[in-house]
């Protein structure tokens, strides 16, 4: 069971455009768009909820996927987003994430 917490990086910019989330990295102004699953993760990344809880309550309930597979994919994605400095990951709760983008 993963004990990772994830939070939206407060230095990233984000907006939902027609159902697709646009995210700009503050590190190098690279623009990303997130698919539906990644958008759910991003929106739920409040720094206080465990990634495993997000996967169980938001991903598995929405999509017909096995928890273990979904969690592994989510961890991979979270680490990738953290590498671009648009998400933060930690084994401790993270304070003050960015607001939930509209």
């Amino acid at each position: 069971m993963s004990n990772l917490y994830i939070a939206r990086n407060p230095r990233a910019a984000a907006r939902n455009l027609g159902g697709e989330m646009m995210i700009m990295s503050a590190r190098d102004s690279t623009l990303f768009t997130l698919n539906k699953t990644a958008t759910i993760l991003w929106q739920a990344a409040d720094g206080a909820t465990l990634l495993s809880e997000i996967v169980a309550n938001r991903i598995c309930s929405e999509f017909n996927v096995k928890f273990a597979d979904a969690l592994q994919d989510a961890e991979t994605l979270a680490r990738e987003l953290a590498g671009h400095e648009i998400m933060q990951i930690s084994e401790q709760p993270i304070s003050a994430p960015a607001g939930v983008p509209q």
Partner: protein
Amino acid sequence: MSGLLEEMTDRALKLNVPLSVQVDLTYRCNERCVHCYLDHEDYGEMTTAEIKQLLDQLAEAGVFILTLSGGEIFLRKDFFELLEYARRQLTFCVKLKTNAIMVRGVEAARIRDLGVESVQISIYSNRPEVHDAITLVPGSLQRSLDAARFLKSQGLRVIFANVLMAQNVRDYPAVRAMATEMGIESTLDPTITPMMDGNRSVLGLGIGREDLREVLHDTALVGNVEEFCAIADPADENSLHALPCSASHTTCYVSPYGDVFPCVQFPLPTGNVRKQRFIDIWRHSPQMTDVRSIRLKDLTTCTSCTHVSSCSRCPGLAYMEGNMRGPSSQDCERSFARTGIPSANMLAKKRLAPNLVQIRNIPSSVGSPAAIA
């Protein structure tokens, strides 16, 4: 524009979303640039609460890129409160335009912490005697450059914006070299914007035709000169249905008094956020709708011009010349300087010119046309 941003812009256009908005927080300024189009008096700027409410509405409307400009943004005592709100609460991609003379290490660190995308600083010359003679503030070049270093040392993206005038046209290569040495990007713009009250006297500060030609044939600026200066293929039916620019389509501008315009360079009033919701102005203002309806095929004079499909024609400058569907003379000059081919507008003016001279010079005592020549 990156491929993805272009894709997002296309999507915003289809969804009628204002992807990018410039908000001027104030027209007050601590410089007095000789070419500036603004009246620096404060006639009742929006309050902190009003601006936050506007920002809420912009986020709700789907605005992603928020440019905060002025006047000088750092003259607002609530600047960092607004910036923090825009970034932390509403997650805009924020770009700043400033002279930066009030930015020191502390401010640069706060800007960095708030994740600002870029800071554009006006730099007119590498020589203090030229730059300071444009800003009319002694020591301003040094202060702006110091600020650029503070910002750069925080890892921020900094851009030098250089407006070209007769006064500084010779200095742009040195400004670009200085920027490169500092790891800073630079832009160059030969456009002088008429004053917002319609006064066009500042246009006299612009660079002349020959200088413009030299600038537009400078390999360092345009890359492949032959390609850049080539005459475009004749416009086909598809290109005549193209949009003139992004104003009112995916971008717009809000003044410190809450007035909404299609663009900072397009002072056609479309509504005021103190009286209406932003989204209602954006979606339903008759003026926005009118601007939105214009296609290249609808332009008077320009539709038949050789340059129609390659011209940088600014509808805002055209509006300030009297007709937003008409030509913008500064862009005609640019097309001419680039290609050597006069625009349809220039040719039309030339055809009219002898008559005008003739009328002006008719001596009252002489009736014979031959005597006039």
